[in-house]
């Protein structure tokens, strides 16, 4: 009896040892493939980061927006529609540029709707967001069937990344980094600047202070003369314009086509990235990178198979599990992080001006 238990314990130790070794090897593997992985991660993280920034701007001013998914989808569709309708007449470049402008405009417009519903009408913010998601699904599906499918015309084209001249690309050390950077499309590149700019704006400017004041204690903000409604309108509209940019990325920079419901929950993963990043732009970007990594793992495992046991294990995991990984990870991270991070105090609470009951 005793001997068997000892043998069992030894087996257990062995198993634990194997698992630990595999985790260690996975870490080493990830570091080794990082140069290959990084562009993919940035690419996959772009829409998540923009969506998460939209969430940060909304919630920092006290407005909950779960309609990011729908806003992305709607902007993605109209960006595609613009490129699709115009690329034969005004050429690919201008039509794609116009597509991005349209996407941002659509995002801002839907932001205006959300702001009106949540700030002025004081409708329930979660239901308003739900409405946005269903409406986006319906409107894009409707127009897709009505306009794009019967036309039988080709796609809208994809934004081609800018290629650096060889003299710069061949620079030691700096060259590969710059090439990697410019290999990203313009939207993916711009995300890095937007993140830094927003971080500075939110914590170093008067506008940022007002935003946070309105989200933490609107009554106090009102007392010192900040227009709560105006500030919230601004933030929601600007944030949703960023979600619109994420939509443009999905159709014009990433895939070059539109499918019904193609956002696939990205708007909600973005919200998880926002919570993970504790409602700061840089943190939200970090969260987006994390979820991007989870998605990229499934891609890179098939391209660069690691050697030894680790390779056998990683290869034996079905592709569907890799595809589900970001969603499962979102749940785990939310469950682990949420209790320890504090949302803006007035998040989700409509503000009623004194005497306006």
């Amino acid at each position, binding site marked *: 009896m005793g001997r068997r238990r000892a043998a069992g314990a030894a087996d257990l130790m062995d198993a634990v040892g194997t698992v630990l070794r595999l985790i260690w090897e996975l870490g080493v593997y990830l570091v080794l493939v990082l140069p290959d992985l990084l562009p993919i991660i940035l690419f996959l993280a772009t829409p998540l980061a923009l969506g998460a920034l939209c969430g940060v701007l909304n919630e920092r001013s006290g407005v909950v927006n779960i309609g990011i998914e729908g806003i992305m989808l709607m902007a993605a569709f109209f960006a595609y529609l613009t490129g699709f309708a115009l690329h034969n007449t005004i050429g690919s470049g201008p039509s794609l540029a116009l597509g991005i402008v349209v996407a941002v405009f659509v995002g801002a417009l839907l932001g205006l709707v959300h702001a009106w519903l949540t700030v002025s009408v004081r409708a329930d913010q979660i239901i308003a967001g739900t409405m946005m998601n269903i409406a986006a699904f319906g409107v894009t599906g409707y127009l897709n069937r009505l306009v794009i499918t019967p036309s039988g015309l080709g796609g809208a084209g994809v934004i081609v990344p800018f290629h650096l001249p060889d003299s710069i690309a061949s620079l030691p050390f700096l060259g590969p980094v710059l090439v990697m950077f410019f290999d990203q499309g313009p939207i993916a590149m711009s995300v890095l600047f937007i993140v830094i700019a927003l971080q500075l704006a939110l914590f170093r400017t008067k506008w940022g202070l007002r935003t946070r004041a309105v989200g933490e204690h609107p009554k106090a903000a009102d007392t010192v003369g900040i227009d709560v409604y105006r500030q919230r309108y601004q933030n929601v509209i600007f944030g949703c314009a960023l979600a619109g940019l994420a939509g443009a990325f999905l159709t014009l920079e990433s895939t070059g086509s539109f499918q019904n419901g193609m956002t696939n929950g990205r708007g909600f993963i973005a919200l998880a990235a926002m919570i993970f990043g504790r409602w700061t732009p840089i943190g939200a970007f970090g969260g987006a990178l994390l979820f991007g990594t989870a998605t990229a793992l499934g891609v890179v495992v098939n391209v660069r198979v690691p050697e030894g046991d680790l390779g056998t294990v990683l290869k034996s995991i*079905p592709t569907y599990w890799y595809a589900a990984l970001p969603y499962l990870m979102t749940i785990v991270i939310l469950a682990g992080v*949420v209790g320890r991070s504090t949302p803006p105090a007035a*998040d989700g609470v409509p503000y009623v001006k004194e005497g306006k009951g």
Partner: protein
Amino acid sequence: MSRLRSVARQTWQVASIPLLAILLAFVVAAVVIVVSSVFTRTGFEPLLPLAAYASLLAGAFGSGTGIVNTLVAAAPLIFGGLAVGLGFKAGLFNIGVAGQFLVGAFAAAVVGARLADTPAALAVPGAMVAGALGGAAFGFIPGFLKARTGAHEVVTTIMLNNAAVLLLTWAVNDLVRAPGFSFPRTGDIGNSALPVLFGRSLHLGIPLAVLTVFAVRWLLERTTVGFEIRTVGQNPNAARYAGMGPIFITTLTMTLSGLLAGVAGVIQMLGVIGFYAPGITASVGFDSIAVALLGRSNPIGILFAAILFGAFRAGAPLMQIETSVPIEIIDIIQALVILFLAADLIVRRVFRVRGAKPIIPELATVTQTWAGGAPPAQPT
């Protein structure tokens, strides 16, 4: 006579906003149809909405088959609507009906295929229980996480929806694929199919759905658990002070909600589809939210709202064939209905309604627990 009038007034108080919201949604959707007709080959057609709505109505109620189709489409929506509505009562927003529906349908399909040759009296309940348990388990996860960690169910249930689609596709491909078919699917359900009661397709799930409406009503209004669910939904803090254990109630409600959504999948699987294959779409998810809101999360209201949306789903294909108006117009109408319910101020202004009740008061709890179960701010 005066009693009759007071009943009428009460009904109007409860039903006026939903009914007017539907009316307004159809008016706005008509504008959408007319404006978008400009971009089609046939060009501007001002009367197209009337034609479309006429064929929608004809498809849903114009024939015996139409009415049966409406009821068949309504049955899963009744279960789904009850699932979302029960969640609302406890201040929870279950957007995960789509995933729980799929898990329920999958479990029923797998167990149903296993029991295909056993007598129906054994096979049908066996497959149903399996599906119900599957849905309940899938509802338990977000419920428990919300209760214990504060992870908001709006995000976790959506993530579970996406994960369910992928993992069930994997399961059908690699675990339970039935031999002898050219595409991945589960085996025939044989005797596990729900008995057909009337015509060609009116199956047992429909009376079952109606019975469940009254069962849920009984649970909410006549039992201690129901009272606790409603208390947690109206004021979680008060419930905690009263010693009700919101952790238990939250987990239980979400599990029950998942169970109801799972049964929606079960009856669709055993009564209509017959086998699980990847790509089964579940418009039931969004529809159930609209149904619960429209029914003000009241079981009887949900019954009527589900029949209405069942009629939309049953009539839409005929509308698309006869008038080329895409069936997605139903999703647009649905979003508009929710818009006018959420912003009932619009409805009140347009129709000058007074004294109507707010749609679902517990919704405030859903929003207040966003982002980590922060204590609900007291409205000042």
